[in-house]
């Protein structure tokens, strides 16, 4: 929206915008491989990603805020991912889940695999693992929410050109 891009918002307003975005992350599920199973587990009863306000509801990218790319991005699938990302409306975020989506993983020398989804779309949070545990995806969501709450809405609306905000390391949640 043009207004948000141009006008500097007062603190409470930008807090409200960040808050609503943070707790209403409609999640487009792009499960491509075994990570998709773990993503399903994160959605299902035991981990219940909806607790964070991440709603795995939309079937259409037009209503999604968060794209979770889980699994091996083949070169053939890269174009649909790019297309889905482009179809999402603007305040949008991407989580790259698993080694394949991060870097190619075990398929780092395959001729058919895109070596990381960040080569085609900007990624906000990288979740490591092969595949990551469901909790690891949840932790990725928490990190994304921390990132969102530190954002400047007017810069965010200009797209993914903003530098990544420096957010103090939260440490190991729960500690060991």
């Amino acid at each position: 929206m043009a207004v948000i891009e141009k006008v500097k918002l007062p603190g409470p307003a930008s807090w409200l915008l960040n808050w609503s975005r943070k707790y209403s992350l409609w999640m487009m599920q792009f499960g491509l491989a075994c990570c998709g199973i773990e993503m399903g587990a994160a959605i299902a009863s035991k981990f219940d990603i909806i607790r964070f306000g991440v709603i795995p509801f939309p079937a259409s990218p037009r209503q999604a805020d968060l794209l979770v790319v889980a699994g091996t991005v083949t070169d053939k699938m890269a174009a649909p991912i790019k297309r889905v990302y482009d179809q999402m409306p603007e305040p949008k975020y991407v989580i790259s889940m698993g080694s394949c989506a991060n870097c190619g993983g075990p398929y780092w020398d395959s001729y058919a695999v895109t070596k990381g989804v960040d080569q085609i779309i900007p990624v906000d949070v990288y979740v490591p693992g092969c595949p990551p545990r469901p909790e690891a995806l949840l932790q990725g969501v928490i990190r994304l929410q921390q990132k969102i709450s530190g954002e400047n809405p007017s810069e965010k609306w200009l797209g993914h050109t903003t530098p990544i905000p420096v957010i103090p390391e939260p440490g190991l949640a729960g500690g060991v």
Partner: protein
Amino acid sequence: MAVDEHRAPRTTESDDARRLVKARRPGFGIGLLKGMAVTLKHLFKHNTVIQYPDEKQDLSSRTRGVIALKEENCTVCMLCARECPDWCIYIDSHKETLAPKREGGRPRKRNILDRFAIDYALCMYCGICVEVCPYDALFWSREFEYAEYDIRELTHEKEKLSDWMASVLPPPALEEGAEYPGSPTRAPEVADGAAAPVKPVQAEASDAAAGTPERRGAQAAPLGTGGRPADAGAPKEAKPDVGPVPGRQAEAAPAPEGAEPAAAEAPPVQEEEQQAAPSQEQAPGPEPTAEDHAGPGGRTETASPEVLGIQMGAEPASPSPRESTETPSPEVLGIQMGGGPAPSPGAGEDAVGAPEEAETRTPQEGPDPEEVARLQETPGPNVEVPNEEPKPTALDPTEDPKEVYEAVLSDQLAKGSSPEVAEARAKVARVKAERGIARNPGVATKEDS
């Protein structure tokens, strides 16, 4: 539903089947109500959610969360980096010359670790590096919470990898009743601190490594230069196009295709060494049934240069007996030689050639009693042999033997046993009571196990 009833292929059914179906079919809509009842029942059941950031699941001790590095154990042997299917381990090192250990000896050379990094964005968590590490420098940790905003942060340098050591669990206790080779009744030794694994001879590992200076130097040189990626000094900068990086690394290696088959054969060699060890006068390791890398550090230490030699093809694989006697730890290598089926100069090659044979040998074969006795008299420097005698489990007589005798006798007679049998059983019970052993079989197994 009513809709489905219309679609049922009635014409193909026999009359009997039709009657059966009719009899089984409940009243109209009952199925729907049953379904509603099922879901309603679940409304009142307790939820199964683990509320993740607030409560944590108790993960299995073998969870593959993150790989931790115990830096002081790493000898830059590069095995992990070479075995890694993803080439996601980056190692840098340099050589230092140390003073000879004793007067007149040769100066020793050591590899000092400069950089050890694992790219967790690329890692496929196969655990081969952990298994292949001969010096127990790599461990699995259960920690999984390290999602990052920037992919470069996912390359954990050795400082961070060492930090993960704090979360490594101690190795699991031995099974009850399992024996250490050479010391049957020794209790499983829990290492001091969570990080240290059960490894009595671990501290000596580096000493032993230093004990074979030339050969180590000879092996380490090609490894250090060839096995390391050409741009290992600056992989952080090279990160964004991470795909090509492993490729370059492969090209930079002297002969990756050649090295791989050798690498594939390496584990059998190691295993052969390990099986050979317990039957010899080698120090008693923690447990013969543990994973192969959990063998005694000193022994594996000597084995590994040879393994490397085979892998690298950098020099003729088999060290001659003459060479081995020259090394400062002659008996160690001698053991190794004698352990093989044929103490030919090419023991290592033999082992490579006959991996099945090596594998079929069960690691459970007990230690030679003579050797054990000898060891207990003159234990090696690294070995602690417990002096206490084996003790029976329970010594306090809990019941009066006479009463037990009477009770069992009458009990058995009442049950209908013949007098002889009853008497025999009663005698057994009396003996058990005298020695303080629980009598009831069910209870006995529970207590004994």
